[in-house]
């Protein structure tokens, strides 16, 4: 996935002169996760460059560049460190089109590695997507595979709205099936074939990762793979939906699926309370109440900070997901 992100960035730098990349350590070094490796030497220092260690300053600078005609793509080194930029994002970037009567807008993309599973403890593990879904004006995207990371990132950069783009860092080098002792690479995975050339996956579209009839399982990021494993092991014919875009989420795909299966499990890494699972659950029951055979289940991170040594007891595991799927079948 490191390569597919890199490829998306490269395509967009090539295609659009207004695209400009900056962030901490992304220039000469190519980023601590190597996602911008080689781009500075290819496109020049004025298009791909380091920034001071200041997420607030990065966001503010991107705001100004965005309203003055550029299309900045910035990296926040870890999603945990996006909060110093929170004010600039939720009060400024998100609202400028509206507040200016449409005179100014800011087509910035914030790329940021998120999620756990790398022994990151409190501050290298968080998955703060839901904290951006409450702010009108932002789009929120969470990729999960090499293929969709590229197609979604290109669409994010091309969007004239600001996009917060989460990359599940645990999956940079391979999928994760919930077992820390099993460390596969992307090789051979069906979503690992990535064309070199430009392609889009439209924002707002979910991906049906597996069709099924008995329960709809919705996940994003790393949890797509954990859920896939759980479904396989559960013996139950579930439909797995990779949400891909959280704002705006794909109502049609989800509502149709839940109407079909009558059951639903939502899986995310972030703490359960006020995670994006709560919005989906609330919204699905509003729209599918009379189709639901059992309560919508949420499997999520606990409502605690993200721990270090005990992280495998924190992140949703296949076992917990299987249990939730089974619960939905009880009725």
């Amino acid at each position: 996935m490191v390569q597919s992100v890199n490829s998306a960035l490269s395509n967009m730098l090539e295609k659009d002169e207004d695209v400009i990349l900056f962030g901490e350590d992304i220039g000469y070094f190519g980023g601590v996760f190597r996602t911008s490796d080689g781009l500075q030497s290819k496109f020049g220092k004025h298009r791909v460059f380091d920034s001071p260690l200041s997420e607030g300053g990065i966001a503010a600078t991107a705001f100004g560049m965005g309203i003055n005609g550029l299309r900045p793509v910035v990296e926040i080194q870890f999603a945990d460190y996006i909060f110093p930029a929170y004010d600039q994002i939720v009060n400024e970037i998100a609202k400028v089109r509206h507040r200016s009567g449409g005179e100014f807008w800011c087509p910035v993309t914030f790329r940021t590695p998120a999620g756990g599973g790398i022994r990151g403890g409190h501050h290298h593990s968080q998955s703060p997507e839901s904290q951006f879904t409450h702010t009108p004006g932002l789009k929120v995207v969470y990729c999960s595979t090499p293929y969709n990371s590229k197609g979604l990132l290109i669409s994010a950069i091309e969007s004239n709205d600001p996009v917060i783009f989460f990359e599940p860092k645990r999956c940079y080098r391979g999928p994760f099936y919930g077992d820390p002792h099993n460390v596969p690479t992307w090789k051979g995975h069906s979503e690992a074939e990535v064309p070199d050339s430009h392609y889009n996956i439209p924002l707002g579209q979910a991906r049906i990762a597996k069709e099924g009839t008995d329960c709809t399982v919705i996940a994003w990021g790393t949890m797509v793979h954990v859920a896939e494993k759980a479904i396989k092991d559960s013996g139950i014919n579930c439909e797995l939906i990779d949400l891909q875009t959280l704002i705006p989420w794909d109502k049609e795909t989800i509502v149709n699926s839940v109407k079909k299966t009558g059951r639903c499990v939502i899986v995310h890494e972030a703490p359960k309370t006020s995670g994006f699972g709560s919005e989906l659950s609330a919204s699905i029951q509003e729209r599918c109440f009379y189709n639901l055979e059992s309560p919508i289940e949420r499997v999520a991170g606990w409502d605690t900070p993200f721990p270090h040594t005990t992280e495998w007891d924190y992140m949703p595991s296949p076992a917990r997901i299987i249990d939730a799927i089974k619960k939905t079948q009880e009725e």
Partner: protein
Amino acid sequence: MSSEEEGNITIHVPDAPFRPGDNPVFDKWKWSPDDLKKPPIDCESEETSAHSRGLVRVIDDEGMAYGDWDPNLEYKEILQGLKHMVRLRIFDDRMMKMQRTGKLSFYMQSLGEECIAIAQTMALEEQDWIFPTYRQPGAQFVRGRSMVSMICHCIGNVEDNVKGRQMPVHYTYKKGRFISISSPVGTQFSQAVGVALASKYKQLNEVTITWIGDGASAEGDYHYGLNFASVYKAPVILNVVNNHWAISTHYNMASGSTNFASRGLAYEIPCFRVDGNDFLALYSVTKWARERAKIGLGATHIEILTYRTGAHSSSDDPSRYRPSNEHEFWPGGDPIERLKIHLIKNYDWTDEKHLQLENEIDAEVILAYKEAVKHGDLANGPYPSSDTIFTEVYENVPWHLQEQWDEMNKWKVD
């Protein structure tokens, strides 16, 4: 035990020098227009050390202009500045009155600070970007915005180009490169650097100017702005308007120092403190800064020393926290009065002409006001359609907003 003494033995809490009931005393200014020379345009920031600690002036206490910073403007141009300033003062006055009658929800004057945005915008080129706070609306006059359009925004009627979305005085005027004002203070200061860098990236001869208050300079954005401008040598003019007050809080709580200008030195940015009520000094320093930015040498940091004569806003009552007459003792005087005297002493301006000007502008403002209220006002409507709640949140309306929009239409109040 007085609170003063308590302050000493525990936490040191600075207070304003004068509070209601006190007799304000200010030291007479020791600075004269002869003090400071123009540094070379490509100077090191250190060469402006004296400029950051002194005060750049052109018009002295008697109304005479001289010294190295005198921009030698033509009478016509200075008069144009005066007219804009008078226009802004009368405009503000009218808006405050309208606010009291409920035609606006809220208002903020530039009283005593009219000179700033007007002089500085006049010193710029028309392709330059203005990124203001709520106390630089005057730049719009320089850029030719119609007063009617400004009033329509303030009274939130159907012609408000912000479409009823923001509070009054949150202007936006892209045609004049006047960037939309936002309420959170300080944010524009760092954003302006991005605007400037985009111009630079595109290799255009464009400079960006921005302002921040003495109070707001305590926000992180102040540091981001100076630092990013310094690292990337952004063509930006970074002003701190030290008008002594942030609502009820004196500037001695904004910083442990009484000098804001010199902060830029440590970022290797040239720094100036300027008499904020001196049209010619402001004009001149801004021209210098623009020239420096244009030739690729980056930012200039300017402290504009002035005094907030009026209330913070129409919601504020300053007599609760400062002597009502404090501004009368402020040695910087009044910017309009000072420019008027300068013109009278040096050109064929007269008190009578000035009075006539005020009358003309008063009529102009009343005309504009009458025209604007034709389109509605906050007390009576018509307002922008509530459909504008849903447009321009995104480029296109996503499904969940469309659903809610449809829902809203069932319950529309107007």
